[in-house]
């Protein structure tokens, strides 16, 4: 059984492999691809990726575990990541977390019962000039206020 991806994903694999002189270099782009395709990176996919890249399975596992963005498990449809490093912290990151907690009824690391939202606190997102900041899936939301957060959450269905 080979790595199963959507048709678009399968096409990408060849393109990605061609970028590097060594197969293992395609590891991170392919892990991103799998996660975009399936929402997380299962053990089965990790084993298949190891075969594709001709590396021991532990090399794949080691990379998945090292980088915080790679997930071994499913999360909510919307992954909310609130920055709480210094510039965001002094401009009210804790209020952002409190507002989301209250609105969604979940704690840090939790997912709403309907599987829509997962809430995380993360380190610096590199958007300190527009603090406080959160990232939902691929998008940044900046200069957050209580009203803005509620509006954003209400718009996500």
């Amino acid at each position, binding site marked *: 059984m080979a790595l199963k991806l959507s048709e678009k994903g399968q096409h990408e694999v060849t393109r990605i492999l061609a*970028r*590097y*002189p*060594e197969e*293992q*270099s*395609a*590891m*991170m*782009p392919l*892990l*991103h691809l799998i996660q975009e395709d399936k929402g997380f990176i299962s053990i089965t996919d990790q084993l298949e990726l190891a075969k594709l*890249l001709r*590396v021991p399975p532990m*090399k794949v596992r*080691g*990379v998945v575990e*090292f*980088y*915080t*963005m*790679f997930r071994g498990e499913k999360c909510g449809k919307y992954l909310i990541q609130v920055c*709480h*490093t*210094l*510039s965001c*912290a*002094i*401009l009210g990151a*804790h209020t952002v977390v409190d507002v989301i907690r209250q609105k969604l009824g979940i704690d840090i690391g939790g997912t709403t019962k309907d599987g829509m939202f997962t809430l995380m606190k*993360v*380190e*610096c*997102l*590199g*958007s*300190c*000039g*527009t*603090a406080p900041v959160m*990232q939902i899936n*691929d*998008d*940044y939301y900046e200069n957050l206020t209580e009203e803005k957060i509620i509006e954003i959450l209400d718009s996500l269905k």
Partner: protein
Amino acid sequence: MAVKFEPVLTKFIDNPDQVKIDTYIRNGGYKAAEKALKSMKPEDLVKMVKDSNLRGRGGAGFPTGLKWSFVPKGTDKPVYLAVNADESEPGTFKDRLLMEKDPHQLLEGIIITAHAIGAETAYIYIRGEFFHPAKILDEAIKEAYDKKYLGKNIFGTSNNLDVYVHRGAGAYICGEETSLLNSIEGKRAYPRVKPPFPAVQGLFDCPTIINNVETLCCVTHIVNKGVNWFTSIGTEKSKGPKLFAVSGHVKKPGIYELPMSITLRDLIYDVCGGMLDEKRKLKAIIPGGSSSPVLSADTIGTQMCYDALQKHKSMLGSAGVIVMDDSVCMVDAAINLTRFYCHESCGQCTPCREGGNWLLKILESIEEGTAKPDDIDLLLNACWQVEGKTVCPFGEAMVWPIQAFVARFRDEFEEHIKYKRCPIDKDRSIRR
């Protein structure tokens, strides 16, 4: 605003069309690359950048031309250019702007630099969270291939160049150049022992130059406007325009392109409009990203250049300036940054992996009022156990801020211990 400076790197960032190659060309783009490839030898370019005194804009401030000259002459191995777009140092947010708003300016710098060092492949290593900037870069690269500015025989010369975007996945350590290389090779991002230096043995064991985004953007303008233009800006040892990323308690946080002769006072009170809450006093400033030692308010007369900040026992670093007013508890700020470094330690070296947690525990006990009077010395001793004892400079990045917070605000640390509580009103300060 009394401080006046004609921006160069950020001249076109307000034009939404600047991301398109035709607009970029209309605004004078790709002339420098064409000139460099058609009429300049690699050694001329290296000399030019050396003469310009351009220093790396990523944080270390290493002379760029000198770095380029370390690639072994006549090597039979392929040479690589790795672009450091990892931008993960808290307080730093300048490269994202350059990539999002003017991606071709970076590509042009890459084309020129690749010619100077003899590279035919360049990887832009961009932090994983920057999904949209990565897409913008991908689109810009596609446009450049279509115009034959990338690919085979670019600008009708014998030069070939392929450029690829390589996304990270949320690890701060990848900003360290050798771990960045391991990350491109599909490995855990552990820093490598130096020597060998990447310029000799880097990516895939081949000579590799790693340059920051802003550094490469500067290269384009040095070729365009000349060495004399570049060296006419700034102070004696800090030449050229510089992006300052200001965050925290100021009225107008943001990214400002200025000469490094600007004082911290002008940056905060003129350029950034002063303190966010005018009733509050300026208390502390981190001048160059979270790992640069904090300054107290009495040092705002300093120029924001490499030498002056060094005299104040700090550094320009990435020029990510974090401004804090007197609502911030200095122990809390130290805890916040130490927690960041603990989380981001790659775990390879014991002093850093274990030391971070000890530092955090001691700091937390000070904040909570359970520390003993000699715990400040214990904290400094633990810092010393980490400093200089790790493979990469991450160890220093973790302890320098703590040492500086203690050195400049020792009274506040002692007050916590003496009264067994934090003297700052928690509702207004950082809550953990």
